[in-house]
């Protein structure tokens, strides 16, 4: 069962990936899906749909899901709080505010010749770091995890309010682009832009995978981690950097995505039955890719096509998981 979990995840990932390429407003036969992947599709329309539209969207979903899930798990371990995640702690909102600022200020910097993706990505990561810094500051001062979550939620509201004020002052083209971004979607990343998302996410998740040993030590608390030879300050800095880059990058390209980062590690824990990062972290990032593909498949399902926002689907999945974690009543308010 234990090793079976990884096999299950890989099979699910493969099936969902193929389904994602085949299913949509146009149904592409599986033969043509495989052909499309290798550039040998008979129908040029199929080649375009599979290779040009659905493949980058499927890859975006997988990268975003894996990135958000990894950042969620790192935050849960860092803050010793199972309800931590990039969206609830306001990290996504911070990134969103920064993206809003640069998007709405587009008329100023677009003439400078910088790649727009780089500017937006940099802003989102900076915004994510800013909120993480505030959360870390708050974490040192509050006694329990619930207070920290409320601080995070308030930061989220604050950022959203600031964004509303910014919208009033912006021209309509910039506003439209931002509103579209704010709804959350895996469809906005074309093949040409994919590397801006893929490189930071891959670097971030690989860096996280190198930290499984100190992450496990951190499960016992910072004092025990220190006594086991972990450089706790360095680890904390590393985790903040990775979390900020992952959550910021994904938010920059896919918009603020609710619950995936928070809920996925719990689904992975339930599947594996362990909190040991050696297995939990790889399972979480695979599970993130699986759940993101599944959610996006619902969004693109024929008949619903495009009319249900991605965030509605991720919330439908994530909110019950949060309630389940709360009701299970594990002692997750940190001890003294």
């Amino acid at each position, binding site marked *: 069962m234990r090793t079976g979990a990884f096999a299950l995840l890989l099979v699910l990932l493969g099936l969902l990936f193929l389904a994602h390429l085949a299913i949509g407003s146009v149904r592409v036969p599986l033969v043509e899906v495989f052909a499309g992947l290798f550039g040998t599709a008979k129908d040029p329309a199929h080649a375009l749909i599979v290779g040009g539209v659905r493949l980058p969207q499927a890859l975006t979903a997988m990268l975003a899901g894996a990135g958000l899930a990894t950042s969620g798990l790192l935050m849960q371990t860092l803050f010793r709080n199972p309800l931590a995640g990039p969206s609830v702690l306001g990290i996504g909102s911070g990134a969103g505010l920064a993206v809003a600022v640069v998007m709405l200020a587009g008329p100023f910097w677009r003439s400078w010749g910088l790649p727009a993706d780089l500017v937006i990505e940099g802003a989102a990561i900076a915004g994510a770091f800013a909120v993480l810094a505030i959360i870390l500051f708050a974490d040192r001062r509050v006694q329990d995890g619930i207070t920290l979550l409320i601080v995070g939620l308030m930061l989220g509201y604050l950022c959203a309010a600031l964004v509303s004020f910014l919208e009033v002052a912006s021209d309509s083209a910039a506003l439209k682009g931002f509103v579209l971004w704010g709804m959350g979607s895996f469809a906005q990343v074309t093949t040409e832009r994919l590397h801006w998302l893929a490189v930071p996410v891959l670097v971030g998740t690989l860096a996280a995978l190198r930290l499984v040993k100190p992450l*496990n030590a951190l499960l*016992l608390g910072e004092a025990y981690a*220190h006594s086991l*030879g972990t*450089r706790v300050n360095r680890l904390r800095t590393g985790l903040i950097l990775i979390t900020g880059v992952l959550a910021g990058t994904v938010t920059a390209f896919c918009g603020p995505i609710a619950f995936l980062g928070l809920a996925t590690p719990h689904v992975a824990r339930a599947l594996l039955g*362990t909190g*040991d990062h*050696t297995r939990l972290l790889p399972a979480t990032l695979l599970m993130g890719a699986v759940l993101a593909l599944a959610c996006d498949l619902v969004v693109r399902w024929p008949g619903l096509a495009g009319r249900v926002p991605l965030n509605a689907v991720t919330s439908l999945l994530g909110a019950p998981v949060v309630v389940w974690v709360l009701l299970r009543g594990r002692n997750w308010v940190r001890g003294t």
Partner: protein
Amino acid sequence: MTALLHTKDLAVGHRGRVLLRELGLVLNAGELVALLGVNGIGKSTLLHTLTGALPALQGEVLLKGETLSRLHPRERAKRVSIVLTERASPALLDVRTVVALGRQPWTDARGRLTSEDERVVDQAMAQAGVADLAGRDLAHLSDGERQLVMVARALAQDTPLLLLDEPTAFLDVVNRARVLALLRQLADGGRGVLFSTHDVAQALRLADRLLIAHADGTVWQGTVVEAREQGALESAFGTAVP
């Protein structure tokens, strides 16, 4: 013989506020030493300073003759382990995994256990009497079982020096006796064991030596007999001691 632990003119405290000072402590292999004193006097602070989790305000800590602050974290973790008062209750970790975390100073970058590591983990669990709990989730254990598991984790760390911060604080009489008997047994087996406690009677009965923290920030050191003769306990606690 080099002492496992030796402090020179050590002062400990928080944020520059000195709690205990002029500490010249010596702890040798095979000794069980109890650290006594009223609440808030700085017992935990002292133990955390001895592991390097808190910086010394003055003076230095030597572990087997080497300065603590200059040791690589991994080397330090091979010399001194600690069992804390705080309840560590991580989600979904079974007892064996928790005990195996004690091997971290000895394992590779990914924390993989060799067969030697597995053997030490088994031995540590057997010695602490928690081998039967191996597959249980730490979060579902009683306070007594959990404390024994944390001791087993420290044993798996395989350090010559073992520090424990109030290891019996939340335990019932039976588990208190179990933990203390285990500490005595560990010292008899050649480790140096230093534990803080409120339980003066048990300390007097079991410990080889006492460290008694006084309100003026000094720490009295000596044997149980000397403590009785010199009235060190009465001056620290302000009342007659059995």
